[in-house]
């Protein structure tokens, strides 16, 4: 670096690196909720694609089926989402041809983290939640930050209304701040997971302008993926 004489300039003031008139990023909104049960996992995402006050599309799926047991929900900068999911599909196909088996959900989760961290210094501006059935047949949820930090969880909300939805899940699924003995808490069935996920989206659509139109819900079990649609308010 010294041969180029960089050190004589203080950080951030070198000419030629500031481009105030073009931002490579854009927020296109959208929310995701995923809830894992003992032998199933539910992942839901709304179908609104927007930027600012524009609604580009009212029926854009944000759920990407990566394998028969793994679904990725991705929101944020839609251009980055398209790139990232495209790259994930390519790498999973390459793995399948090399190892002659489908990637497990846990392997996909690790690969997604690495793929995102590869762009540490020019990140994919996306909020990812990965849902699937792990190799023991249990439902799992992985959530990510934009640079690839990965955490395994049982339930998670993300995207533009993630901060609105997460406390609801903490209460209804995590049973936080509920004064009931353990025996009286409702068991987490598939039906209850779908119901709670649906309700959180109905509430989020009331307050978040980037969430609405409809929700796509995927229920993943060892037998396959069941798809449901729920209409939301369109304003």
């Amino acid at each position, binding site marked *: 670096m010294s041969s180029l004489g960089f050190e004589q300039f203080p950080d951030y003031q070198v000419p030629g690196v500031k481009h105030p008139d073009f931002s490579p990023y854009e927020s296109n909104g959208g929310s995701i909720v995923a809830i894992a049960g003992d032998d199933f996992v539910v992942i839901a995402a709304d179908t609104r694609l927007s930027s600012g006050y524009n609604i580009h599309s009212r029926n854009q799926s944000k759920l990407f089926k990566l394998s028969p047991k793994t679904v990725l929900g991705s929101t944020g900068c839609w251009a980055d989402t398209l790139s990232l999911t495209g790259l994930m599909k390519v790498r999973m196909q390459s793995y399948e041809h090399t190892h002659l088996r489908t990637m497990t959900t846990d392997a996909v989760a690790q690969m997604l983290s690495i793929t995102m961290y*590869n762009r540490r210094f020019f990140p994919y501006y996306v909020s990812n939640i990965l849902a699937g059935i792990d190799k023991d047949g249990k439902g799992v949820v992985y959530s990510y930050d934009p640079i690839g930090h990965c955490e395994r969880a049982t339930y998670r909300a993300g995207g533009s209304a993630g901060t609105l939805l997460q406390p609801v899940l903490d209460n209804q699924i995590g049973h936080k701040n509920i004064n009931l003995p353990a025996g009286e808490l409702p068991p987490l069935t598939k039906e209850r997971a779908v119901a709670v996920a649906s309700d959180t989206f109905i509430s989020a659509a009331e307050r978040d302008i980037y969430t609405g139109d409809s929700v796509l819900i995927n229920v993943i079990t060892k037998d396959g993926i069941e798809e449901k649609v729920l209409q939301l308010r369109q304003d």
Partner: protein
Amino acid sequence: MLNNYNGMAQPLWQNGPAPGEFYNFTGGQTVQKLPRELTTAGPYGTKRSTAAITTGSSVLGIRYDGGVMLAADTLVSYGSLARYQNIDRVFKINKNILLGGSGDFADIQSIMRNIDQKMIEDQCYDDNIEMKPKSLASWMTRVLYNRRSRMNPLYIDVVVGGVEQNGTPYLANVDLRGRAYEDFVVATGFARHLAVPLVRENKPKDKEFTAEEASQLIRKCMEVLYYRDTRNSSTYTVGVCTPNGCGVEGPYQVNENWTFAATIKGY
């Protein structure tokens, strides 16, 4: 290892500091690593103008039961000057693809030269296989996304329409960042505000538009755009794509009527 199988695999670590070095926010790139686009890289990086100079306004696309229609007016502006008044911004790409371009017209012409060359190569194979609209839209996302990632974007917003091999209509929009989506109505520029709501309002539930409805809507929307978008002209061209082939028709004239103007008072 994945990397041994193809040359397309990306290196594990990009734009970061070398091992053991501190990260320098301004010095992350070396001269050799700077983008290889037309400009010469300087020792402190490159500053580019990202402003659009000559611009095309809206493009509107509507998908209907038997194909797609794309419309754009024939004006290319230079700032507020109506500079070029008879330029076709809807292009026939091949037998089953139409493309409508808005934004910086120089960038549109540049990408069109690329596409035309691709189509010539496609024809040279002489194998009766033609590019499909979905493939072109996907290719556009990769070109535009890579340009934005190098901070040297093509300032364009395009609508890709056409008919897939099995006869299903296809309509999509790709913007300067590589953001892409499909829908029954897509638009760029002012048409996104003025035309899209008009078209959505007229959409029958669980049913596609008919050709008649689509052309009526195009006519209505181009009229609204002419009245309310200051960077529009009264002439426009319409591209129509059906399983039997595609073509660009026009220029048509907006059916303008200013008799109401005399009744507007109070300004």
